[in-house]
């Protein structure tokens, strides 16, 4: 095989194997930075040997064996440097343990636990959100620094530094390589889910013409979410997040029009919704429901709302009353003005614009919604449907002045124009 072919194959192997490799090593050396270094050394060895010798049938096992020799050497050197007899005794024990272990079994037995430990460590609250995202993509996603930089439209050295500092922070804070227990698990898990969803959203908002690494982030997040769902099968919110991502991703093909313009959910061609992903999303939601009963968490509730849309063959068949019920629960659980606004839209669809208007009027004083164009846009829509055209026009003009998106501005201005004479505006 040519050198390029071999490298591409090795890249693929690395992408699949590196998280498991790093996780197992981190358990042995108790430091994710050192674990990654050892894994990288094994990769270098693979790059040197595999092009000639061929890629082994079980490349993961090969990499692990190579990396573990490095780990033994490291522990031996540490023992020599420290010159403590007790330490030496333990190190020798550790070396013997490593040498005696059946390497294949070692990879399989602990790998789930180790991956979880790695996930929680990479998403540790001692790190900034950006650092958690970068470290997670690097250690668990198998992305290179360059790929992460391209995905987030940031300079490569910035990402490199972010990762270096993150590892240092973890080492200096002596963050233990473990899965949190009991009450701590819920809080720490929410941090992990937040990182995964952040990655997903970064990909979801990528625009046409962007580097393809950006929308690929959705797949990376989905993969991480699915892995988490198998590692923590009894955590309802993990399935909830996976359900939400699968269903949102199911709309990718329908979200953009022929000239790149955004298409609103209710206007999308549902024939282009990916039924495979919808099926998976509904299955994940069902798993969440079976675990939490009616007490769905915030991600599961958002997924349930997305599922209502997914199940409707046409926009007209949407069960809006059901969506309202989920928003009611979501507002109670994780209240926010944006959620309240979305709820108002659903209420209007289910019970008429007057009901929606009443809710929106309660939000006009909200400081966080001040510059948000969708507030006057939604209010304008309700007023229009109630025949209050001059008020509606004022709101649409206001909304147009607040949006930065040219297409959207044009849409809102055309709605404003349609208020004169009270005709139905042209459909987007």
């Amino acid at each position, binding site marked *: 095989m040519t050198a390029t072919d071999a490298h591409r194959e090795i890249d693929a192997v690395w992408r699949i194997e590196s998280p498991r490799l790093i996780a197992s090593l981190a358990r042995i050396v108790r430091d994710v930075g050192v674990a990654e270094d050892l894994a990288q050394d094994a990769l270098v060895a693979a790059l040197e040997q595999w092009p000639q010798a061929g890629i082994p049938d079980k490349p993961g096992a090969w990499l692990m064996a190579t990396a573990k020799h490095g780990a033994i050497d490291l522990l031996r050197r540490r023992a020599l440097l420290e010159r403590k007899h007790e330490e030496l005794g333990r190190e020798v024990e550790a070396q013997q343990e490593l040498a005696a272990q059946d390497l294949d079994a070692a990879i399989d037995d602990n790998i789930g636990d180790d991956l979880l430990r790695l996930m929680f460590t990479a998403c540790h609250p001692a790190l900034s959100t950006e650092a958690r995202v970068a470290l997670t993509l690097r250690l668990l996603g198998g992305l290179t620094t360059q790929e992460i930089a391209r995905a987030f439209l940031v300079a490569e050295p910035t990402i490199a530094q972010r990762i270096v500092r993150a590892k240092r922070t973890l080492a200096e804070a002596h963050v233990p390589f473990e899965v949190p227990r009991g009450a701590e698990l819920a809080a720490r898990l929410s941090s992990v889910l937040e990182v995964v969803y952040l990655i997903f959203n970064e990909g979801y908002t990528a625009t046409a013409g962007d580097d393809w690494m950006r929308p690929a982030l959705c797949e990376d997040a989905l993969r991480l979410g699915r892995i988490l769902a*198998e590692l923590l099968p009894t955590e309802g919110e993990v399935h909830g997040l996976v359900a939400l991502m699968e269903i949102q991703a199911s709309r990718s093909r329908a*979200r953009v029009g022929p000239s*790149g313009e955004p298409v*609103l959910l209710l206007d999308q061609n549902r024939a282009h919704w990916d039924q495979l992903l919808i099926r998976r999303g509904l299955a994940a939601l069902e798993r969440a429901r079976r675990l939490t009963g009616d007490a769905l968490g915030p991600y599961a509730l958002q997924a349930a709302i997305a599922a209502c849309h997914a199940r409707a063959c046409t926009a007209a068949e949407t069960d809006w009353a059901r969506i309202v019920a989920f928003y009611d629960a979501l507002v109670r659980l994780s209240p926010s003005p944006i959620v309240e606004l979305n709820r108002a839209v659903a209420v209007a669809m289910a019970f008429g614009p007057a009901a929606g208007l009443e809710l929106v009027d309660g939000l006009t004083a909200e400081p966080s919604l001040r510059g948000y*164009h969708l507030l006057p846009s939604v209010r304008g829509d309700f007023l229009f449907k109630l025949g209050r055209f001059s008020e509606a026009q004022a709101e649409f003009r206001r909304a147009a002045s607040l949006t930065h998106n040219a297409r959207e501005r044009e849409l809102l201005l055309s709605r404003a124009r349609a208020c004169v004479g009270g005709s139905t505006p042209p459909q987007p």
Partner: protein
Amino acid sequence: MRFLSIYKTAERSVPPSQEEMAKMGKLVEEGMKAGFLLAVEGCLPSALGARVRLSNGKLTVTDGPFTESKEVVGGLAILQANSKEEAIEMAKQFLVQAGDGECELRQLFEAGQNTQASMTANP
């Protein structure tokens, strides 16, 4: 990227044993745990199937079993992979455990990665 993996193997004369079913089940589970297995289906014996062909305007139906083929389609999987090489790696990992057989990998058509301009409310 998505890949269709068509798994072909020698047709068996007896149904799979409990052990073989468990082994396949475990392989599927591992694929699920790795997050890249989007769908997986297993085929019943070819005796229960048929081949339908249109040739020169004429339709013919051939009932199974398809004994003249050394291997028949045993199942399919849809994989989410970042590259063809990655899909190959996944297929290798499956086969090394599943035993003799072949995975034909075909990249699936997906409408261009259409993503949209930033809107605050994502449709």
